[in-house]
């Protein structure tokens, strides 16, 4: 499965097995994790929710656009949902190409596109309260 929304932990090895091929010499792997500090606050956990049907649809569109735009061989995009404490994996993007340049560019581009387009939202649970994160804004949860 090259696009996936899941509550389960990622296995990077399993992910690589879906996109491995003999023509590829470069596998750029981006693994996002929950960070302890955000906007000056101490984060306890993130709570992700998703519009799953649409998210999978958008992730597949980003994947196909990346293949076309950068001429890479393959791409995988996975996203976690649910309650994720500090240190947990949140997103995994793998770009596969004969050479590293295009793979790095495509991976960077795809992570940015996911952050802008895929309907996933997080709430930050911090030592100063709970905040909805909407783009760049943090709005207190009442």
């Amino acid at each position, binding site marked *: 499965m090259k696009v996936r929304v899941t509550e389960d932990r990622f296995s990077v090895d399993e992910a690589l097995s879906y996109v491995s091929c003999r023509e590829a010499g470069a596998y750029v792997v981006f693994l*996002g994790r929950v960070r302890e500090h955000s906007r000056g606050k101490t984060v306890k956990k993130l709570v*992700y*929710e*998703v*519009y799953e*049907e*649409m*998210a999978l*649809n958008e992730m597949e569109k980003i994947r196909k656009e990346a293949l076309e735009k950068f001429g890479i061989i393959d791409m995988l995009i996975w*996203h976690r949902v649910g309650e994720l404490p500090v240190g947990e994996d*949140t*997103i995994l993007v793998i770009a596969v190409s004969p050479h590293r340049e295009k793979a790095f560019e495509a991976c960077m581009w795809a*992570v940015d596109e*996911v*952050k*802008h*387009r*895929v*309907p*996933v*939202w*997080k709430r930050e649970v911090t030592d100063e309260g709970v905040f*909805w*994160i*909407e*783009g760049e*804004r943090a*709005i207190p*949860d009442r």
Partner: protein
Amino acid sequence: MRIKLRYFARYRSLVGKGEEELEVPDGITVRELIDILRERHPVLKNEVFAEDDDLADVNVSRNGRYVRFDEMLEDGDVVALFPPVSGG
């Protein structure tokens, strides 16, 4: 015609439910649907559409795809309203 509405993230929390069905006039646009929702859910009017033309931060999808505000809706459409996304 009948439209199924879905609300996500903070909007779901404001409306107090994740989905509802609504009978609306045939052939209305997304923008006209939003006007109906403003009246139906004053909390959206106050918290989301605070200014008259403040739709910049509101995302709308129709049957799982992003949609323009001038697009016309059809019977049975699933329309979702949600805030700017924050995945990654």
